[in-house]
């Protein structure tokens, strides 16, 4: 299989993610400082976690003096989807990706980095992965710093408008594929239906945390579609010399 392994191509693909992150991280910076964290603390959280949902959930626990167990368990649940994405992305890696690259790249395997690199029509190589993780990382860090420093200056209406940025990016990742691939469209709609059931039925939304809702709906929708609309078997061009 062909392999995309150009650093600049990765930088370029990461650029829109970077700009999206600037706004989302900006919002996180504001929240973190308003919650009582110092600027350096907000920035450090962003640099070492690089995850929007997990960080948003973590700040109140840290500020409120929650237990380490509570913090760790919350992160585990909310971020469990990354385990699925890491498995999935590992299948897209070309031959150039070494073990040490996986240790580094997995650090910035975010929803968007994953979605963009796994939507490439070919394998991805190590240089490409470094490019596509570097720009979003910079955007995430810089956005947090700017939000933490300057957040209080911005009018509320601008902050409200920035709030939709990350979700609009998600829409932009799913829609073009759903337009071309009917099973992806149906899987997406099914996942949305499940998500609405879990979020809008009070009994469910009260007892199941948002992280768990994401995990349950994702697994159910993906399993159902893997069963009813499986991928065609992979064409093996190489002669199998192991057997």
């Amino acid at each position, binding site marked *: 299989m062909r392999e995309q392994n150009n650093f600049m191509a990765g930088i370029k693909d990461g650029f829109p993610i970077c700009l999206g992150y600037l706004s989302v991280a900006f919002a996180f910076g504001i929240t973190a400082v308003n919650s009582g964290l110092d600027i350096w603390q907000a920035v450090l959280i962003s640099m070492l976690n690089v995850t929007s949902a997990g960080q948003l959930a973590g700040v109140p626990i840290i500020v409120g003096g929650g237990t380490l167990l509570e913090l760790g368990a919350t*992160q585990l649940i909310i971020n469990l989807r990354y*385990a699925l994405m890491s498995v999935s992305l590992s299948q897209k890696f070309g031959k150039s990706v070494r073990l040490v690259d996986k240790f580094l790249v997995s650090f910035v395997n975010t929803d968007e980095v994953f979605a963009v690199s796994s939507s490439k029509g070919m394998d991805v190589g190590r240089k490409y992965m470094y490019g596509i993780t570097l720009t979003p990382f910079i955007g995430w860090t810089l956005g947090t710093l700017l939000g933490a420093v300057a957040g209080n200056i911005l009018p509320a209406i601008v902050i409200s408008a920035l709030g939709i*940025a990350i979700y609009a990016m*998600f829409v932009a990742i*799913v*829609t073009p594929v759903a337009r071309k691939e009917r099973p992806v469209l149906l899987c997406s709609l099914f996942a949305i239906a499940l998500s609405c059931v879990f979020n809008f039925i009070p009994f469910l939304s009260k007892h199941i945390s948002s992280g768990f809702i994401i995990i349950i709906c994702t697994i159910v929708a993906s399993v159902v579609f893997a069963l009813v609309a499986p991928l065609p078997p992979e064409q093996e061009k190489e002669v199998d010399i192991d057997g």
Partner: protein
Amino acid sequence: MVEAGPFLLYLLVMAGVTYLVRMVPMVLIKKKIKNTFVRSFLYYVPYAVLSVMTIPAIFFSTSYLISAICGFLVALVLSYFNRSLLVVAASACGTVLVVELLIKLIV
């Protein structure tokens, strides 16, 4: 204010868990998966997870439901016509801003 000492301990746990969740599966799985069910499952995961995370959360991501709906529709239409992530995100934000300005003017 959170003291530096306890903060760093929190940070260590938070970042450690997040990193392990991402790193371990990527490092442990070395071979290409051949199983059709597993491959198909992993193929659908990103679209399912992003769909679940977006809806209904997008409708509560701004100050007003109506501005979020408008932003969502703009994002949907633009991405249907293959506009880039950046254009879609910026247009959605712009739409929310305009709608909320109009709400402020009218109400």
